[in-house]
């Protein structure tokens, strides 16, 4: 296989993911509406309850909506990663995963392409949200819109890889409710997406360390800093480390010889 053929394969997988996203209107709309509902209702409701002091990367006092916007961008990517994971389980149950897996390209490449395809969709969604959020006076500097792109890609890859790992563990579509309860919600709430960590630390030191251990916190901070034109090296390093770990687990999970697919028997 040549490099051109690898690129064609990647292009085909990304194209299919984009087409599926566009064809599934409810997914398209809910992906956009969900963070806006949070911004409009949650943000407005809590702006008078929660005060936010001046913390980096902000240089002045900011309304609560401005604080939660990067967290909501990360939430879009978290949901998208889980949505990709859900569609992997669906594909496996429906059989279309087999089409991907019998391709002559190496499995790590196919999974990586699937991951990149999901990230491409999530980046588009994130920018759409940021465009609408501008009307809520969430106006990061213009260069922030550009600087956030690599952060979105890295965070999207990590959260997508988490989705891949989950899809290799989750046996049936019905079990996905458990993923919502035990993965998405705890990850979102036990992070810096909705409240700054110094506030969490004041109320519970244990919860603070839980938040610190949560990769979603670092994805959120990576995006928050990038959106204001600043690089956050610790957050980037942690997100990258998690990406490597989760991707290795995903490749293991989908390995025909060692992983879960071989042990699962008739499910595939």
């Amino acid at each position, binding site marked *: 296989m040549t490099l051109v053929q690898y690129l064609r394969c990647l292009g085909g997988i990304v194209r299919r993911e984009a087409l599926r996203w566009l064809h599934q209107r409810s997914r398209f709309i809910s992906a956009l509406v969900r963070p806006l509902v949070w911004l409009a209702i949650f943000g407005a409701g809590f702006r008078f309850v929660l005060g936010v002091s001046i913390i980096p990367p902000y240089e002045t006092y900011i309304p609560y909506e401005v604080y939660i916007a990067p967290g909501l961008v990360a939430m879009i990517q978290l949901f998208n990663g889980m949505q990709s994971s859900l569609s992997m389980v669906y594909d496996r149950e429906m059989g279309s995963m*087999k089409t991907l897996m019998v391709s002559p390209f190496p499995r790590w490449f196919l999974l990586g392409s699937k991951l990149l395809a999901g990230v491409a969709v999530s980046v588009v969604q994130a920018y759409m949200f940021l465009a609408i959020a501008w009307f809520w006076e969430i106006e990061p500097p213009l260069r922030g819109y550009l600087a956030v792109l690599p952060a979105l890609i890295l965070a999207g890859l990590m959260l997508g890889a988490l989705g891949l790992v989950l899809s290799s563990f989750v046996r049936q579509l019905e079990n996905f409710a458990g993923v919502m309860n035990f993965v998405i919600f705890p990850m979102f709430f036990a992070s810096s997406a909705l409240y700054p960590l110094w506030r969490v630390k004041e109320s519970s030191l244990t919860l603070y360390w839980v938040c610190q251990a949560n990769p979603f916190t670092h994805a959120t901070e990576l995006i928050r800093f990038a959106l204001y034109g600043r690089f956050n090296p610790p957050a980037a390093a942690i997100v990258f480390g998690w990406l490597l770990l989760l991707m290795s687990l995903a490749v293991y999970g989908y390995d025909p010889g060692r992983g879960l697919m071989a042990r699962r028997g008739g499910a595939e």
Partner: protein
Amino acid sequence: MGYCPQIRMAAPEKNREGRISRPAYPRERFHEGGGRTRMVTSARESARMQAVETAPLGRPALAIEGLSHVFGRVKVLDNVGFTVRPGDFTVLLGLNGAGKTTLFALVTRLYSSRTGSISVFGHELGRSAATALASMGVVFQQPTLDLDLTVEQNLYYHAALYGMARADAAPRLAAELGRVGLLERRRERVRQLSGGQRRRVELARALLHDPALLLLDEPTVGLDIESRRFLLQHVRSLCAGRNLAVLWATHLIDEADAESRIIVLHRGRVLAEGRVPELVARTGAADLGTAFDRLVRAA
């Protein structure tokens, strides 16, 4: 159009290494572009060329030896071995639960075999998976089309998974869809097609990259008589016309005709192998159905 009929009909020649060479094969094509001529080898051509042309003379399309597989404590395949040759319509006959689908999952590398070997045109699946997979087309028992995409979007996706350029895939797509009578419906969503039509699309898709080995796992399940007949006739004609090696798994005895090679798989073991008249004669039965019953009862 497709290159394959003309190529396969060209007489193979034996070179010094004892390997097949096909001098008539148009391996390289010349495209005019940007004011100068450049040489292009398509993905599809190169993949099949690699698999078929480097196969030592006389090697079967599919060779399985000593293949066993377990799920937990259950042995689903036990020392399975058989071959499928180019031009052969081979029927893998077995009751539900015989191990047919597991065998297909192992041959297509969805699972890995820990015991035994699987070779496609002499290329061992464990060592040369890419070459082996590139030369096979698969129709799974379960429908595997994306219902929300159109027919041609599904096929272009498949072409990309085999590294084919859209320019190469377009004429192949038109040819294969034309052969199954669905060219006019290429822009419709798969959801709008009937079960039989979806199966035909899956067959066209499996042939899009021009494989030399076609695997079909109970492809007629749930189809009406007319769709079943069409599928069988179409695959048999491909076998004869393109010298395609076919492995057709089924539990329906009437899908095997007199020319078919039969492999009887029962509880993970191969009970018998041979042409229909041989099996009938060997078991002293009047027809294949009775022969199958006797073999299974004796096991």
